[in-house]
């Protein structure tokens, strides 16, 4: 990876890296730790300290700025580590499982931070096992299963690999589903009051409105009709044939 640079040191200055297993000098204060790592990335000492304080303040960690890292909570220490990855304002940021171990509030805060980086023009590469994070934050995804890349492209293209799902609820006989050829392998679930819920994949290219129109034409008593677009989770299962080994 050269980022158009010939000098390795300059490449390092433009990259921020957050490893999965986090670690900082436990006896250092957050300000010193962030300034030290920013200094290694070429930020002058005074400016590094200024940025460290500014970043900590923005993340609500002003009070912890001059305490030893060993006295901080895990979530706070993780934030400090992330800030130390960003203090030199890198063009490319690599985050290995950045959300692991964070509570929902801190996850939300981290998401905002990542969006901010992207808005600034930085490229953010992060790994995650939580598809919702990737789906919410990424433009491009690489899906890896069993050490093999199974997909590389835009999120929308990945989602398109999985079928849309149609769900119908109402009081009708399962045999009536024969009139809905757009629905593939429908699963039937019996509900209270003699109603059933039918869930099935919509054939590729088939319009959902056509299925609805047919259902009404057959006089089916439909109380609920829902079309669900596939998400990245569905796409991952489809693309890996549902056989991705647990990491």
């Amino acid at each position, binding site marked *: 990876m050269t980022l158009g640079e010939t000098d390795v040191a300059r490449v*390092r200055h433009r990259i921020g*890296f957050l490893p999965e*297993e*986090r670690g900082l*000098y436990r*006896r250092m204060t957050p300000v010193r730790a962030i300034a030290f790592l920013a*200094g*290694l990335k070429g930020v002058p000492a005074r400016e590094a300290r200024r940025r460290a304080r500014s970043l900590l303040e923005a993340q609500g960690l002003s009070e912890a700025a001059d305490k030893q890292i060993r006295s901080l909570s895990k979530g706070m220490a993780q934030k400090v580590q992330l800030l130390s990855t960003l203090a030199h304002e890198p063009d490319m940021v690599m985050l290995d499982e950045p959300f692991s171990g964070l509570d929902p509030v801190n996850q939300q805060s981290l998401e905002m931070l990542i969006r901010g980086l992207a808005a600034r023009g930085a490229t953010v590469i992060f790994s995650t096992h939580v598809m919702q994070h990737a789906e919410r934050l990424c433009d491009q995804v690489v899906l890896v299963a069993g050490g093999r890349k199974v997909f590389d492209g835009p999120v929308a293209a990945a989602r398109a690999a999985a079928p849309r799902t149609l769900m119908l609820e109402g009081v009708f006989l399962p045999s009536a589903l024969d009139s809905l050829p757009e629905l593939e392998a429908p699963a039937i679930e019996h509900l209270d009051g003699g109603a059933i819920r039918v869930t099935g994949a919509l054939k590729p290219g088939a319009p959902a409105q056509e299925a609805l129109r047919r259902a009404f034409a057959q006089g089916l008593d439909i109380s609920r009709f829902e079309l669900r677009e596939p998400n990245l989770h569905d796409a991952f299962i489809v693309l890996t044939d549902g056989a991705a080994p647990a990491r």
Partner: protein
Amino acid sequence: MNRLLMIAWREYLAYVRTPGFWLSLLLLPVGLSSIALAPMAIARSSPVPNVTIVDLTPQGLGHAVERTLAAPGENGKPMARVVAPPGAPFASRADATARLTPYLRGARELPGGGRLDAVAILAPTGDTVAVDFWSRDVTGRSFEGAVGDVVREALRRDRLEKQGVAPRVLNAIDSLQPQISDFSPKAERGRVALKDRLPGLAGLAMGMLLWMVVLTGAGMLLTSVMEEKSSRILEILLSSASVPEIMGGKILGVAAVTGTILAFWMTIGACVLVSRSPALAADVGNVLLAHGRWAYFGFYFAGGYLMFATLYVTIGAFCETSREAQTLLGPMMIVMSVPLLFMSQSLTAPDAPLLRALSWIPLFTPFMMAARAASNPPLWEIAATGAMIIGVTGLELWVAIPAFRSGALATGRFDLRTFFSALARRSA
């Protein structure tokens, strides 16, 4: 500040801010001062014991013993306060023993008050004298040597005088002492003085100092790298600096820590030496400055430290726990003990074939060459061993850089396959 210096500075501050650093700094001067002053302080604070001499000898040897014990010592205090034996005279050794024992047990006090601490009973036995020591405690044996010497000398003089040797002649004979002098063509003024032995002592001191620095510095480096690897800090550092910068920064930082401690110790030592013996201090200074010895010692010191530090930093990168580090350190410690065994021999035989041979084993070279400084090794030997240290250190670095990267990024135990594949990539 460049990255190497930043890493070194952080490393230095990390150690300087620990209580252990300050303990190390102060412990040696305090320890040495205690060793030097403790016996004097103990002697000054101890009360002078009360001793009684029961003299049953016909020659009256007790007077000589009394004079010796009552004479003021180096600290101005007598060895003992000689008191008249309570209840004298005594008929025999057994009588004296039986009647004085209650005083030693503390059951009775001396007539003028105070307790009796020891009794020496001198009694004739055959053609010699028996001396029975009785003391309050089983460990109270401090007068035995002095009393034994006095009695031995008195008996010797007595026998010789009985053989017809006049006391004047005896005194003249006793005053005869051989005049022994050491000479060497290498000595500055022919006769060997302390000043001429100083280079050997300085060499041994430098060798020992290097050994201590390598031992303490290596431990610090190993621990530092091992902790940073296990806490994944090393991965972050590797994304911010090159391997030579990280290794160099750590080695320099720890060198600065040990250097600070040594400088503090040496400054105190120099101040003490200058105040107590300015002439000796001047001689030591001259010895270190003469014949470029400061450069000689400096080169082997720096080369030796760098050679071992590189090795230990690399080992540290392959360890995640102190147990793993200990496993790898064990064999190194065995190797390190070899120069320790032989360095002191260089004081008496710096050019012994075995010591010269050991100087050519790279891991021992810095220690042995420093210790052999007194023999002024030939220039070719200095140049060749110097080149060898530089070559070995260069080779170490060549191996250590990929090994460090491989070890730092690997997880789990030391893996020979990972290590050699890193080397193979380096060779390719």
